[in-house]
């Protein structure tokens, strides 16, 4: 089985896992789900890191650099803002208020 096919297997099965889990997420948490999904879509940073390894000033490295910046905005920003929201939901009163 070629790499493309293995990838397809993984993709289709992961979609099903996603459907199974995400339909169980309550509507109250749909906004944190979306910002969390933003963070997970930043997984593409792995590809950006691989592409950037040449470290040259060739076009490919510059493009990869741009990808690293965008993807890490998503990863860091996505997880942090999701945590901020979920902290509100967990019912704890905000400290300085």
């Amino acid at each position, binding site marked *: 089985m070629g790499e493309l096919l293995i990838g397809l297997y993984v993709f289709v099965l992961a979609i099903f896992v*996603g459907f199974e889990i995400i339909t169980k997420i309550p509507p109250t948490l749909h906004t944190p789900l979306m910002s969390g999904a933003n963070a997970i879509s930043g997984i593409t940073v792995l590809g950006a890191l691989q592409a950037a390894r040449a470290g040259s000033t060739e076009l490919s490295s510059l493009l990869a650099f741009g990808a690293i910046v965008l993807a890490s905005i998503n990863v860091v920003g996505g997880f942090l803002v999701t945590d901020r929201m979920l902290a509100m*939901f967990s019912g704890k009163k905000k400290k300085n208020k």
Partner: protein
Amino acid sequence: MVSANVIALLYLLSAVLFIFGLKGLTGIRSARRGNALAALAMLLAGITTLVDIGKADYRWIVAGLVIGGGIGAYVALKIAMTAMPEMVALFNGFGGGASALVALSVISLAILEGGEPLGASASISGFVSVLIGGITLTGSLVAFAKLSGKLGGAPIILPGRHWINGFLVLTTLGAAIYFLLSSGADATALVTSFLVATALSLALGVLLVIPIGGADMPVVISLLNSLSGLAAASTGFVLSNNLLIIGGALVGASGLILTQIMCGAMNRTLPNVLFAGFGGVSAASDSRDYQNITSYGPEEAAMVLESAMSVIIVPGYGLAVAQAQHAARELGDLLEARGAKVAYAIHPVAGRMPGHMNVLLADADVPYEKLFEMSAINSEFKTTDVVLVVGANDVVNPAAETDPQSPIAGMPILKCYEAQTVLMIKRSLSPGFAGIKNALFENDNTMMIFGDAKVVLQGLLAELKELGTA
């Protein structure tokens, strides 16, 4: 150098942690831990990749991570909860843009810089990444501009837009086919076809989102969320990286489910949302269409609230715009202190993105036990004394049930009209995003209170407190 098998196993561990993280989000108590697990998975994956790369020039990598991470952290900590839709829209675009850039980088290395030539499957998936990523990027930027008010919420409809879009799609496909078939062609031709396709996908993103009206934003933002995941997955195909494929697929599935839920909550199909140019000005009604409107001030409304034993608060986008969530919670608390039963009813498409109202009310410390979904609370309106509608319109419009000709016919609504009294706080009689008249305003049991949601709620609070001490 760590062996490829160890790397692959560490990626598998990350994938498992991602799935457990998402599972955590199925419960409010476990959600925060779930998010932390997913973050841990990402950290593990990142470190694994750095180990896999081994010796390399780290200057660009570190610079990129620091700049991106810094911007992300700053935005995440500063952003107001009312602005979440804009932020998610922007991040959708960044995700799509990043995946497209990775694919472009790989292709540039292969074609322009004398790297190993790409195989057929990498070429195809590279093309797909760039197309989906490009559409996601510009589409999200337009959505961001609309959500943040930099661009009007009304649909912008170009003449013959379906022809333009069709032309763009066909040209893009043509460029794609040329690129894929011309393995022996010179680099210039390959690069040209690729650049043409990239530019067209960027244009398509803009053209697809500008005709979509503000009320349909929950659908668009969910769909773009899904696309940002699919772009990452197809980049995973380019690099034969299974973790990218899994992460992208999870995000893709999540966005698709939300898209489906949002469409269902408006009784519309996805093609209808995307292509109908819904919510135009043509059907708009204004105050002249209304008779029998009874307008009241906060004093009269406070008297009605004073004697109410059960109150349901229905928040809408107007509440978000006026930043009135804290005032709404204070009013709810006061009514409860006076012995009334208070609940909050949330329509799935209230606000600008899925779950937006829940976040705003949580921001104002409303306990989530008091937030009810439409299906859970719709049978309660009959036995409720007062419904307080704050800045919502189409989602409480009985025309959805009574008028089969209405553009929103069949859309599930909150059955506010069944309550004893409806207090409707609105800025004016202007129509909601569907651009239609709301029959609820004219009902005998409806009291309209005109004004900014926050100002009116604060007025109600003051009046109620006065009544309490008198």
